[in-house]
């Protein structure tokens, strides 16, 4: 702070962070000429520690970072950040304006009971091996794999405005995978069990019902391998939270980022069909569709007490009864749309990355309390129930998308039937959400999430959750994939 002040910075902040990541994996693969498959463990532990300094000089941002955390290096890197800012200021005619923020002095820890980094690796490997063996023991199973991932972020933030905040966030994620192969017909299919990734400790791993799910997916992958291809055309869809969460993310989550709407992401991620003039008036969904952004939902992957601008996090409406009403913002963006405070959406994925506007948790409000999943299915004559994530792609303004899934079940005459294969659905964001005519009640609401959402240049990764209940969409274009 002293160095920044000496070099005439009008604002300075520093983040000092330790980022830990542990991946424990087991893969079971057949070996040519052997009855006994290979059981391959892979364990990678990472620890990254460093700091990043942001300054505003002559109205422009500068940033520099280093992994050598000493007083001398911090002073040197602060001077580098000032050099960067001065260079940027030569091209900029509009100075950065930060919305007011209270200077908090707090510590906060995400909710967990057992820090996964304190749990011995041997136990994690045994758990994965047992589950992967259970899958591999299934009829016609080619291979299996299990994966545990743990992340811990311990970050300290201080600003020239007097903020001093330390936060510890722990996240847990798991996947169990079954692979079936039909060599005669050159077909390979996969079925996953992916519990929602959450801000949680190792206690969550114990609650994942590994055996039950191993037995389930080893049967379902074989059904998927033998499932008939879908007959393409307009169909009604019932999407489970494991699938709908990603659709929410791509179609509504990204289109309501203010930096995209204002052109700041034009060169890579793109812009948004929800331009500023549409706020408060554009219908993007049916009257039962309401979505909100937040960084306060317990267990959410984007949940924190403060964002990387030092702003206290909050909950805010994004779509209200089908109308687009609010953007995700940071301190420097709020004034650009006439708002007085930030929505707390500033985030950097490492000490070495520049904080910028990233997606919070974005969730769909549940439907009427009495609506069940069975009710949604009962209202479909010709449709598909989709579970899990598959391939996903959406255009640079978040209109046209195509999503797959992990398992597809035919719905015929109001009943769920057998599995289908080679399914993807295509739509346009407002058309899709306008076709939503049923959302199951709060009892069905689940918090799914993403660990690796990419944005920015150089690219950064972000994790966030998307809560929803199963929902029904009418007459969506279903395509036959390879």
């Amino acid at each position, binding site marked *: 702070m002293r160095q920044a002040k000496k070099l005439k910075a009008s604002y300075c902040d520093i983040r000092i962070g330790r980022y830990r990541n542990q991946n424990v994996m087991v893969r079971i693969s057949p070996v040519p000429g052997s009855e006994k498959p290979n059981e391959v463990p892979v364990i990678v532990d990472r620890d990254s520690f460093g700091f990043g300094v942001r300054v505003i000089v002559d109205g422009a941002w500068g940033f520099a970072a280093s992994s050598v955390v000493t007083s001398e290096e911090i002073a040197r890197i602060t001077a580098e950040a000032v050099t960067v800012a001065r260079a940027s200021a030569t091209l900029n005619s509009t100075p950065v304006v930060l919305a007011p923020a209270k200077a908090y002095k707090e510590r906060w820890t995400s909710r967990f009971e057992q820090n996964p980094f304190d749990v011995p690796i041997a136990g994690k490997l045994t758990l994965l091996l047992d589950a992967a063996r259970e899958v591999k023991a299934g009829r016609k199973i080619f291979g299996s794999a299990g994966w545990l991932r743990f992340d811990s972020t311990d970050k300290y933030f201080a600003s020239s405005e007097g903020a001093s905040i330390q936060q510890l966030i722990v996240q847990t994620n798991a996947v169990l995978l079954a692979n079936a192969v*039909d060599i005669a017909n050159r077909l390979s299919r996969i079925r996953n069990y992916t519990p929602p990734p959450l801000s949680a400790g190792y206690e969550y791993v114990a609650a994942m019902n590994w055996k039950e799910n191993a037995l389930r997916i080893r049967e379902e992958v074989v059904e998927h391998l033998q499932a008939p291809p879908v007959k393409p055309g307009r169909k009604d869809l019932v999407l489970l939270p494991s699938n709908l969460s990603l659709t929410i993310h791509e179609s509504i989550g990204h289109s309501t980022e203010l930096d995209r709407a204002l052109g700041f992401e034009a*060169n890579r991620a793109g812009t948004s069909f929800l331009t500023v003039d549409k706020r408060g008036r554009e219908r993007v969904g049916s009257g039962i569709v309401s979505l909100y952004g937040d960084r306060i939902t317990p267990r959410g992957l984007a949940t924190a007490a403060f964002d990387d601008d030092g702003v206290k996090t909050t909950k805010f409406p994004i779509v209200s009864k089908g109308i687009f009403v609010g953007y995700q913002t940071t301190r420097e963006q709020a004034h650009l749309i006439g708002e007085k405070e930030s929505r707390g959406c500033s985030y950097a994925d490492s000490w070495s990355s520049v904080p910028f506007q990233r997606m919070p948790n974005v969730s769909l409000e549940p439907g009427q309390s009495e609506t069940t999943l069975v009710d949604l299915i009962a209202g479909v004559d010709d449709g598909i129930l989709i579970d899990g994530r598959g391939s996903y792609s959406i255009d640079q303004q978040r209109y046209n998308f195509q999503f797959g899934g992990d398992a597809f079940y035919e719905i015929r005459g109001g009943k769920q039937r057998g599995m289908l294969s080679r399914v993807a659905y295509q739509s346009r964001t407002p058309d899709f959400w306008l076709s939503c005519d049923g959302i199951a009640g709060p009892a069905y609401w689940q918090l799914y999430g993403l660990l690796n959402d990419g944005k920015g240049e150089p690219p950064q990764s972000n994790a966030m959750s998307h809560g929803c209940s199963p929902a029904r969409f009418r007459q969506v274009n279903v395509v036959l994939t390879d």
Partner: protein
Amino acid sequence: MLNRQEAQRIVEKAVKLSTFPEFAISIDWSEATSVRFANNAVTTSGFTVSRSATIACAREGREGRYETDDLTDEGLRAAVRRAEEIAESAHPDPEHMAPLGPQQYADRENWSERTAAARPPRMIREIQAIVDSAGRAKLVAAGFFRAQASCSAIASKAGLFGYCRSTDSGLSTTLRNPQGSSSGWSSRQAVDIAELSGAALGEIAADKCLRWNKPVRLEPGKYTVVLEPAAVAGLLGPLAVPLNARLAEEGRSFLSRKGGGTLLGEKLFSGLVTLRSDPFDRRFPTLLWDTDGLPASPVTWVEKGVVKNLHCTRYWAAKTGKPATAFPRTIVMEGGGARSADLIRSVDRGLLVTRFFYIRVVNPQTVQVTGVTRDGLFLIEKGEVTGPVVNFRFNESPVRMLANVRQLGQAERADGESGTTAVHMIVPSLVVDQFTMSSVSDAV
């Protein structure tokens, strides 16, 4: 930046700290400068020094890996201890391969002092030229300029040591009209930052943006397409993983033969298609070894349409009696002599594609991918570009694309989708028949 002697000193220290019979370490060190701009002004820019060590140790097939940023004596000691603790917890890995001993790496270095020394004040001059191009055309510029100097070292207890350093840089820009109804893009990457011209890129992006005015909506369907190099690079990227021997032999790749075996040696693509890896090409950052530490060497994957080689890990090679072959971290597709205008002239009715976006694999086995066109899609009629077209979503496989190649343009280094692809590419423009556009994409 870490020099060879300093790198050697660090790795020797780490080797001495290790108590396990097998020990390998790699060090990556980089100094990266970037300037990001949008709405004709700089937004975020920065300078980052990153250094990390990856330590792998093993005893009786039990492996542990640990990555750290802390290269001090204390940091290395803790990292080695942690890697060994992990290994002690692990089960034996039946696919474990011991670290390599001494290897002969090529004496090559693609390095530019200008790139290594580049900082925002120098880089902003090129961005100013782009903003000027935008201003003259009444457009709005966004983009990204990066420059990086990096070095890597690799070593093992068995006597392996390698060191290399390289530079790389890239400049890309998107110019849009203020109404947001038109967009144009251009991009270039180079080892020597002096090869990047903001003025030249700004002119190309402005021209694309101005020409993409009042696009027509065409029906989805199969089209003959002229793919510019960035579009080709985007589609070839997903092909790197499936060119794997194990996947093919296990029946999980497009190169698996129905009923068993592989399609190695078969002609699957147009006779115009030759795909190689060339880690020594002067246009790429230096890559002297592959992920296993084997010396990088040129490999021909496809020659005149025939599949010639598959990449193969050391384990699978030992198991099946094949040579170990490195993963393709570079792809060079041989080009022809035709200029862009010649390719367009050869098309009676088709589409000219600037680039693709959000490319994702739909079916790993057939390598069917989906994505959308972006920043300049034009109709070609009777050998002439006649006007802009509303964007499309496509569902297509690079396997089919390479089978349907009709003509090659001149090859150049090109971005994939994001400019950050791990696979560096030199690819030509292509004329491809029967390319599947599956729906209209209204995005600009």
